[in-house]
Structure formats: structure tokens, C-alpha cells
């Protein structure tokens, strides 16, 4: 890549470089700088000059260094071999980098994203003479035990006739698999590999309405604030409130087919934790290792800031590629605030006029563009797939009024606010039931009602009402003490306290509790509401609340999330029966 010199370095200011003598550089073109061949991207062109942002540490770059053009925008390689790999922000495989430079990452290294030597077992699905359209499947490759990789005609070919196709067998990603003839008579040779520029969304046929929930296995999310497949959600929270833990849990247990986990400007050890843990964890639905459906992007906080900016786009482009194959993909971006800060840092270095708190004025546009790439789509080939985005936000000082949180709220339809006081008392996941909301309630209502005998909507409403009542009662208690309340109201406090420990809290390290099935969630909620119903009736008959609270079966309820297995519905039914019987007995004593 030393053929085309696009200009020379004029000025270096950290990750931003000004070029002079520029005439044929393209906007957003990927370039390589100096003899070290550092990766950069053209972000501005003016008067024979260009501004380039560098994706690696700029130390040692001199004015006068040559800059070489690549002729294409910053893009990613898409093909079999992505799953299970860990990349940096510009899709360089970190394991390969380690092989080349050891434990520390040196600069100027360049590796293809997928293994070009590895042989894949290809199975053709079209025949010679067939007419193919963009996005259409022409073959499959078993990528991992659970991912059947679909090879598609790239979006650039609208219609063509298959002139030649490889027979079933083992090929590398560079081998020519299909030759197609375009209507104008031109031939195109296709391999298993496609390239796509990261900043441009991959085309789809149509956006569809959202209707299925993304089941995460976290009760507070699934039951109270559900996210739809193809939806977007923000998780804001100060440090230590459990953003990363929540993201990890969702990445581990949600029912998406593919997970793209973007560690954007976060801790190195956290990524190591994911790397170490995911291969060991087993998906409760398929019984296979979680790494078999996961792509990781690790651009830790000490890696170059421009690559951090790009990492989000790298991730979503890979997600869209799998969506086009008909998969449901979930993206975890941890954290979008670091990405916004990277934008701010680069904008500051380019001496642009800042808007709020130093962030560039185009921040809301960029956030909107990113979240709009989510959706439940009818793909070009006609099959359906979805990309859901779960973005963590790290507001400075835990203050939700800062620009990134505020602008993100404008473009997401679901909000899981993390609460510091809950985190301090180790109530995890610390998702506040008062600040959070989900606009997908209407979209997923029919799905949920189908899976809960129509109970979900009513039960959800009932418990939310109780939680609201509790807030008011707590205010009174704070003023006059709990003894001032009648037992009937004290019982609401009691039920809410139980609901929090028995239902909302979830222990990510407990083998049973870390994932909760839909059926179990429905049953658990119904037991707790039954407790409220029966208990209130008993109290009306004159049973003191303390007696109800001391029932052994109530203690058992508090632990049912830990003690009852995910498909042991009978155990919960039995618990409910015993609960009803115990309270009836108590009622019987006091009635007489």
C-alpha cells in the first residue's frame, strides 16, 4: 500500500494530523501514515489540505512524512470466522496482534480480520443458470455449532445470473466461489468475503414493526421494562452502579442468536473477564458455549481514542451483516459515553466550535444515526432479522442531566436507569423501578399475554401501582415512623419489600438465579400478588400483619428465586398452595 501518496504531514497534534499538498484524497478514505504505516482516516478536506484522525498513538510522526491512500473508506471484512474472535476498534484481531508483538500492542501492525488460511466447508444452495438478487443466499458454511453462516450476494449486485458455482467442499475465504454475469454482460467473481464501510448502514428491504420481546432472563427487565427485538435501550448509571454487570448478564443470557459486545473505552481486565468467562458459560437454550455466538470488540480506555470512536461503527456493521443472514443480533455498547468523549476529544483537537460541555454540536446527530441502525428488518433476501442496541451511558457524577444521557434519551425508546442507593445496598441489578420506562410495552403486550395466560399486563400494572403507593407511604413513614400506619398499609410496604428482595434482585453469580425463564417470572409474580391479595383479606379479618410476615412459607417465598429451578413450575404452584392454606388458617383463627 505504498503506491499512492495522497499528501505529506504538515502538523501533528495528538491523534489529529493536518496534511498538505493534497489533491486526490477522498473524504473518509482510510490512509496509512509515515514509514510506520499507522492507520488513519480523512475527516476533512480544504484548500489542498486534509485533516486525518489517527487510530494509533501518533508519537514519532514528523512533518514531511508521506501519507499513503488506500482508495477505500474505513471498512470491515465480513465473512465466516468473525464469531468467537476478539477485535480492537478497527477490526484487527487482538490474538494475532499478540502473536506479532507480544503482551503489549505495538503500532503499525496490520492483520486481516478473519483467517484467510482456514478452510470452511461450503455447501452451495443455487445452481448454474439461476437468477440471483442482492442479499440472496448462494451457499452456507457452518461457522460454529450454532451459527450456520449464510453467504449472500453483496448489496452492490442488483441482479445477475450464476455462471459458475463451486461444488460442495472446503475453501478459504479468498477462493472464488461463485461467478455471476451481470445483465450488462460483465462477470463478477465472488468469494465468501465482503467488505463494507463502517459508517454506512447496510441496506434492507423494509423496516418492520417490533413485536417480540428480547428475553434477557433478568426479571426486572423482562417483566417490568421489556425491550423488543430490534429495539434500543440506554442504561445510564454512575460508576459502580453495575452497568457492566447488567450488560454482561444480558450478553450471557438473552435470547438473541448473535451477540456483539463492544467494550468501548472500558477496563482491560473487564474484557479479560468476558474472554475468560464466556467460553466456559453454557447457553441454557442450546447447551452450547456462549462464545459460539459472540463477537467481542475490545478498545480499552488506554487504547487510542480515534479507534474508540470507530469501534461502535465496526460493531454495528458486523451486527448488520449477521442480521442480513436472518439472525437476531443484540449489541452491547459499553459505554457510549466514552465514545461521545472520543468525539469531543477529536473535535477539540480539530479546533471546532463546541456546544454543551465541550461536546461538538453534531453529537445528537451522531447518537441518532447510531441508534437508528437498530431495528427489526425485512432483509434484501426477504427473510427477517433484527439488531437490538443496548447502550450503557456513564454520566459524569451520576448526573442524568448531562448532554450524552439527555440526547440518548431522545433517540432510545427504553430506559433502564441505574440507582446509586440501590447499588450501595447491593441491590442488583440496580435498575430503578421509578426512573425507568419502556415504550415497547404496547409492542410486546400480545406476546407476553400469550405466554402468561393473559396475566402479564394486569399483573405488571398491579405491582407497578403497589410500588408507586409504597413511595408515598415511605414518605409518611419517614416523618412519623411505621407504627403510625394501619396494618393494611404497612402490609403494602411489606409486600413491596418482599417483591424487591424476592423478585427484583437477582444474583448474577448464583447458578440458578442468574437467569430466570419466562414461565418462572410469570409464576413468581403471581405468587407475590397472591400473597398481597390473601394477606390483605386476612388483615381485613383482623389478623395482625406480624403473624403473616412470620409465616415460614413467606420466608420460603423470599428465597424462591434461589431455591426453585427454572423449569420446576410445580414447586412454585405448591408454594402458592401452601401460602394460601397458611394464610387461610391464620384467618380462620382470628375470625372466630
Amino acid at each position, binding site marked *: 500500500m505504498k503506491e499512492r501518496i495522497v*499528501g505529506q504531514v*504538515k*502538523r*501533528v*497534534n495528538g491523534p489529529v494530523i*493536518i496534511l498538505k*499538498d493534497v489533491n486526490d484524497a477522498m473524504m473518509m478514505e482510510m490512509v496509512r501514515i509515515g*514509514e510506520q504505516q499507522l492507520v488513519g482516516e480523512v475527516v476533512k478536506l480544504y484548500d489542498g489540505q486534509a485533516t486525518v484522525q489517527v487510530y494509533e*498513538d*501518533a*508519537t*514519532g510522526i*514528523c*512533518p*514531511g*512524512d508521506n501519507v499513503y491512500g488506500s482508495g477505500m473508506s474505513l471498512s470491515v471484512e465480513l465473512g465466516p470466522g468473525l464469531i468467537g474472535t*476478539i477485535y480492537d476498534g478497527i477490526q484487527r484481531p487482538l*490474538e494475532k*496482534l*499478540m502473536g506479532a508483538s*507480544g*503482551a*503489549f*500492542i505495538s503500532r503499525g501492525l496490520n492483520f486481516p480480520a478473519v483467517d484467510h488460511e482456514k478452510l470452511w466447508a461450503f455447501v452451495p444452495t443455487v445452481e448454474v443458470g439461476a437468477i440471483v438478487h442482492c442479499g440472496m443466499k448462494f451457499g452456507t458454511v457452518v461457522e460454529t455449532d450454532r451459527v450456520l453462516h449464510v453467504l449472500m450476494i453483496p448489496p452492490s449486485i442488483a441482479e445477475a445470473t450464476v455462471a459458475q458455482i463451486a461444488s460442495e467442499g472446503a475453501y478459504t475465504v479468498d477462493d472464488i466461489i461463485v461467478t455471476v454475469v451481470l445483465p450488462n454482460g460483465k462477470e463478477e467473481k465472488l468469494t465468501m468475503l465482503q467488505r463494507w464501510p463502517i459508517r454506512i448502514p447496510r441496506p434492507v428491504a423494509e423496516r418492520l414493526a417490533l413485536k417480540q420481546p428480547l428475553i434477557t432472563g433478568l426479571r426486572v427487565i423482562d417483566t417490568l421494562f421489556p425491550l423488543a427485538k430490534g429495539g434500543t435501550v440506554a442504561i445510564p448509571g*454512575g*460508576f*459502580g452502579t453495575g452497568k457492566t454487570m447488567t450488560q454482561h448478564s444480558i450478553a450471557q443470557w438473552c435470547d438473541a442468536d448473535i451477540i456483539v459486545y463492544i467494550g468501548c*473505552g472500558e*477496563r*482491560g*481486565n473487564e*474484557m*479479560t*473477564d468476558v*474472554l*475468560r468467562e464466556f467460553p466456559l458459560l453454557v447457553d441454557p437454550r442450546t447447551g452450547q458455549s456462549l462464545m459460539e455466538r459472540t463477537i467481542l470488540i475490545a478498545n*480499552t*480506555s*488506554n487504547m487510542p*481514542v480515534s479507534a474508540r470512536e470507530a469501534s461502535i461503527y465496526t460493531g454495528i456493521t458486523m451486527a448488520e451483516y449477521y442480521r442480513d443472514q436472518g439472525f437476531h443480533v443484540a449489541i452491547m455498547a459499553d459505554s457510549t459515553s*466514552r465514545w461521545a*468523549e472520543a468525539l*469531543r*476529544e477529536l473535535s*477539540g483537537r480539530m*479546533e471546532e466550535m463546541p456546544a454543551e460541555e*465541550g461536546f461538538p454540536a453534531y453529537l445528537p446527530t451522531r447518537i441518532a444515526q447510531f441508534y437508528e441502525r437498530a431495528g427489526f428488518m425485512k432483509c434484501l433476501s426477504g427473510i427477517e432479522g433484527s439488531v437490538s442496541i443496548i447502550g450503557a451511558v456513564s454520566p*459524569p457524577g451520576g448526573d442524568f442531566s448531562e448532554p450524552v444521557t439527555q440526547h440518548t434519551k431522545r433517540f432510545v425508546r427504553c430506559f433502564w436507569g441505574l440507582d446509586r442507593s440501590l447499588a*450501595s*445496598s*447491593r441491590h442488583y441489578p440496580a435498575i430503578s423501578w421509578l426512573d425507568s420506562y419502556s415504550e415497547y410495552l404496547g409492542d410486546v403486550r400480545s406476546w407476553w399475554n400469550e405466554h402468561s395466560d393473559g396475566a402479564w399486563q394486569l399483573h405488571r400494572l398491579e405491582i407497578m401501582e403497589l410500588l408507586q403507593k409504597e413511595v408515598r407511604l415511605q414518605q409518611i413513614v*419517614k*416523618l*412519623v*415512623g411505621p*407504627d403510625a400506619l394501619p396494618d393494611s398499609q404497612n402490609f403494602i410496604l411489606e409486600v413491596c419489600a418482599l417483591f424487591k*428482595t424476592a423478585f427484583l434482585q437477582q444474583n448474577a453469580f448464583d447458578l440458578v438465579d442468574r437467569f430466570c425463564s419466562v414461565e418462572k417470572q410469570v409464576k413468581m409474580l403471581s405468587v407475590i400478588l397472591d400473597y398481597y391479595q390473601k394477606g390483605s383479606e386476612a388483615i381485613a379479618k383482623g389478623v395482625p400483619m406480624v403473624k403473616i410476615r*412470620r409465616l415460614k412459607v413467606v*420466608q420460603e417465598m423470599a*428465597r424462591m428465586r434461589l431455591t426453585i429451578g427454572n423449569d420446576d413450575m410445580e414447586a412454585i404452584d405448591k408454594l402458592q398452595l401452601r401460602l394460601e392454606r397458611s394464610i387461610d388458617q391464620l384467618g380462620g383463627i382470628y375470625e372466630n
Partner: protein
Amino acid sequence: MRTNKESLLVQTDRHLLSGREYRGASRIDGPLVYMRNTHAVGYGELVEVTSPDGTRRAGQVLDTSDDAVVVQVFEGTDGLTLPGTGMRFMGEPLTLPVSEQMLGRVMNGLGKSRDGSAIPHGEAERDVNGEPINPTAREYPRDFIQTGISVIDGMTTLIQGQKLPIFSGNGLDHNQLAAQIARQAKVRGNSGDFCIVFAAMGIKYDVARFFTDSFEETGVLDNVALFLSLADDPSIERTITPKTALTLAEHLAFDKGKQVLVIMTDMTNYCESLREIGTMRGEIPSRKGYPGYLYSNLAEIYERSGKISGRSGSITQLPILSMPNDDISHPVPDLTGYITEGQIVFDRSMQARGIYPPINCLPSLSRLMKDGIGEGMTRADHPHLSNQLFASYSHVKDVQNLASVIGEEELTTLDHQYLDFGSFFEKKFVNQGFDEDRSIEQTLDLGWEALSKLPSEELQRLTDEEIAEHYGK
């Protein structure tokens, strides 16, 4: 446009030109010196600055372009004149000669001797800016470090390879605590080759003295490398001090296989120096005037800790920072908390009540604790026990609030039990002597003693077996 051949010539020229001295600065502003008409100078290059009286100082290129170079001078610009300032661009980034013999020595922020004695020749030259550790090469830290301090061992366990800052305030006992940790820290069942790298940024002479005395008393001074950039040293030197210290730490840990504890105090001073330079260069500030790249910059320091698989050493960081006005949402503690693996938060009211260490465990957190405690590491009941202590102690705070409104007499019996628990927890569990070294078993037993003040049905985070085994014993 130049051809490849021409550009190769330029490269060669540059090599030959590096080391050549230029005289006459065009502008001096605070720690920054601007120079025109030099050869093409690389970004981040090391610069040797000569003052009119012939003394030499170190600097680094902050901005380079066709017509001017901006150099920040680490030892300050006092005494420099426009015509009399000389500069030599060394053609390579700032490096530190590192060697094991640096242990036991007192150096300035650039790694030069502070007491005039010669520093031994380095075994290797290292770029002080370091390179990021590849996340795939890291080994997840999980070895429990016993500090002998109950509230840390029990509630916010320190793990080898962790970065755990102390969020303190002016006048609080953070120095005592850091010294106590440095003295008592050990990995059980593995004595290891332990050493300390100490970096002081803008702290007072007395504080530096306190640390050296404390290291001397316990006889570990020979195992400590001190990098001191005190309050009366040029503030710009502080911006390089932690990087120099960590460069040595990396050498000791990853080349020599030592277990290195890096104590850095005070990170707030470091950030203020960065702000100073940023303002002087006319950069667009973000919160409270701090530069927009403060997060990335702090990350470059804090992320230089951890373990690498296949190598025996580790770097554990214990940065100390004072929260201006005890405000945890101030940019420095806030950004630090987002990078580090937890935090230990000091509480002024606890210190006022005579509790040492005055650690408020509720906002404190150790993110790596989950994998370093429990069966085979500390004790099987540790995870649930600490969880329960957190939950119960947090309830104590609610009860205390309630009591301050309705009066203690109005509280229920259960609430009184909680108050008893709270007071035992603070006075017996948290509070301990400056020289008191408690084993993890002692700590956990004390925790159980505290919980035994509560009725057993309140302990919902513990299993029945654990309660049967330890409760009320």
C-alpha cells in the same frame, strides 16, 4: 509531491539532524517553549533544553508543524531567555533507563537522582509512555491480597493486579492507611518477591517524609523506589512522574517477576497540572476547566496495572486522590472511578467520630472481589457474609435517618437491634489500630459477631447452613 526515494532521503536527513542543537526560542509561555526553523521534528520526541547558564532540562514535543515546534519543559522554564535557550531534538520519545537497582533510591519525577548520588546504569531503556497491554494477553486477577485491615479485606477486597484508588479529602488519614497497606500487604501462602514503587505528585515535604520514615521503620526502604515531585517542584514535572514510576514498575513486574505495589499520591495534583498546560495552550476545556482528554490520559496511567498470562509478576495500583471539597462527583474522582476497579471512599464524619480507617464501605467497592474470595481463596462464607453486611449496614443508615426524625424512643425493637449492629460494626469491625494486622479469619469472625446482633431471620442473603455454622458463635 515527493516520490518514495525522496522521502527516504528526508528520513535519513532527519536521523542525521537529530541531536543537533538549535538556539533561540520564539516564545516562552509557562512551561511551554515555542521554536521556529528547526528540521522536521517528530511528535512526542524527547528534547534536551539548555538554559543560558548551561544547565540541562528535559522536555517533550507537544505539537509539531512545518513552521514551529511546541515543547513542554518538565523542570519548568524559570531562567530561560528567548535568545539564550538551546534545544536538541533527540529523535526518540522520552525514555527511562530501568534497573532493579533503582529500588532503595530517591529520584525526581524524571527518574534522576534527587540526592545527587549517581543512579546505576539501566539494564534497558523504556519509553515512559508505555504501550497498551493487549486484553487477550492479560490474566484475570484473582489472588487475594490480605491487607490486615478488616473493612478492606472483608468488604472491598484488594486483589493482586487491581487498581483500587483511595478517595480521600484534606486532613483525612489516607497516608496512614496507604502506609499500613504497604507494610502489611501479603498474598497468603506465597511470600513472593514483593516491592513498592512510590510516586509523589505535588505533595508536601512532610508527607513524603512520613512515607520514607514509615518505610524505613519497617525495614522495607531497600525495596522501595521513590519518585518524588514535591509541592515546590515545577508543576509540569508532575505530569510525567506517574508515567516514569509505572515504567519502572512494568520492568520490575513483567521482566523481573516481582509483585509490585504502586502508590501514587496525589492524583488530583497531577490532573491540575494537566489543566494548567491545557489552559496555557488555549485548548477547549470540558468540565471545571479540565481538558477533554482527561479520561484517556488517566486511563493511560491506571490501565498500566494488572497481570500478564505467562509472566509471574503483577502491578497493583493504589492511587490516592483528594476530593476537592469532599465532592465525589468532582471530575477527578469521577473519571477515576470510571476507570479503576472500584474505590475506597473516606468519610469525614467517621474520622470525626474517631474511627480509623475512616472508610465508608457503602460507596466503596472492589470490582475484582467476586472472583478472589470464597472457598479456597478466603473462606466459603465470605461472599454471602460481605453481601449481608452491606445490606444490613445500609439499612442501619435508614434507621438512623428515621431515628433523627422521630427520636430513638419511637423505634421498634428490631430497629434498635439494627442500631446496635451498626455501632458494633463501626467501632469493632471497621475501627482498628494503625499497627493492627488482622487475618482474614479474624475479620470474618468479627463480621459474624456483628451480624449476631440481628435476629437470624433478617439475614436473607446467607444460606441456612452458613447461619447454622457461624451465627451467634
